[in-house]
């Protein structure tokens, strides 16, 4: 908390990797243990003596999986557009079903998938929207875990045992209301996948597909 790891370019050329403290002081990795850092005012005074200036920087994101004890992490780019999220969200012991979860809003750029045994899934409207009360999963959960329609039946504890081999992609606008949880064991299936429940009907033209994945 309070720092960012970054690759910076200096006004004299060359690059350095280090940490930006309090968004104002850059410390090279090799100087991380400098005694100046234990006295903030002294560190700032020391930094003012240098003629080096950072002309450009790129932040180095921390591995999402390294954030222990954090239930859910969403990475956004500079435009606050959704990049990725931690997978540990789905493995929390206290993670409950989506229907019991509080309503939250999607981030810009967040993408979801829906797996169906039907190529004419009736939760998808004629104008490629979704109906209120429609289940799906996150793109991240699907990409990491679903290769076949049978995988989807197991991970999302689907009652219909016909392989859910038709994969729809849902790209709702930011601010879409949904409930987010974990598929509970049911119907002889383990569950454990991230499930989301869209609270309201969506605008048109947010659904693409389906694409057919292997049954087994």
């Amino acid at each position, binding site marked *: 908390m309070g720092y960012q790891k970054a690759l910076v370019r200096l006004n004299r050329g060359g690059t350095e990797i280090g940490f930006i403290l309090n968004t104002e002081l850059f410390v090279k990795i090799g100087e991380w243990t400098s005694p100046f850092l234990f006295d903030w005012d002294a560190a700032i005074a020391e930094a003012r003596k240098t003629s080096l200036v950072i002309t450009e920087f790129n932040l180095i994101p921390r591995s999402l999986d390294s954030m222990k004890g954090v239930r859910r992490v969403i990475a956004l780019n500079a435009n606050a557009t959704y990049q990725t999220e931690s997978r540990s969200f789905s493995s929390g012991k206290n993670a409950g079903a989506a*229907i*019991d979860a509080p309503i939250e809003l999607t981030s810009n750029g967040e993408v979801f998938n*829906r*797996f*169906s*045994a*039907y190529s*004419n*899934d*009736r*939760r998808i409207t004629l104008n490629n929207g979704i*109906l*209120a*009360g*429609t*289940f*799906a*999963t996150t793109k991240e959960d699907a990409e990491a875990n679903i290769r076949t329609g049978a995988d*989807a039946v197991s991970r*999302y*504890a*689907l*009652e*219909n045992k*016909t392989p*859910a081999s038709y994969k729809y992609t849902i790209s709702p606008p930011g601010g879409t209301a949904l409930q987010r949880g974990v*598929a509970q064991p*049911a119907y002889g299936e383990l569950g454990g996948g991230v*499930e989301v*429940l869209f609270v309201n009907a969506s605008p048109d033209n947010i659904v693409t597909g389906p694409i057919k994945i292997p049954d087994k």
Partner: protein
Amino acid sequence: MTTKLPEKWIAVLAKLPESGMGSHHVDIHMKSGQIIRDVPVFNSEDCQSDTEFDPQEIEEIRESHPKK
């Protein structure tokens, strides 16, 4: 056995939230007064019930597990 719902009832299920991805659970009220309870319906159209019924004789369909 699987019983196909007419479009009229598919439209009704479209207004109900799903019980899980791809399925509803509903109580089917027949015109005769019979109620077939907790019937899974896949894709809003395929009723999975051991009780045989004529879909043209359905009076009403209600959600079995209302949202909490």
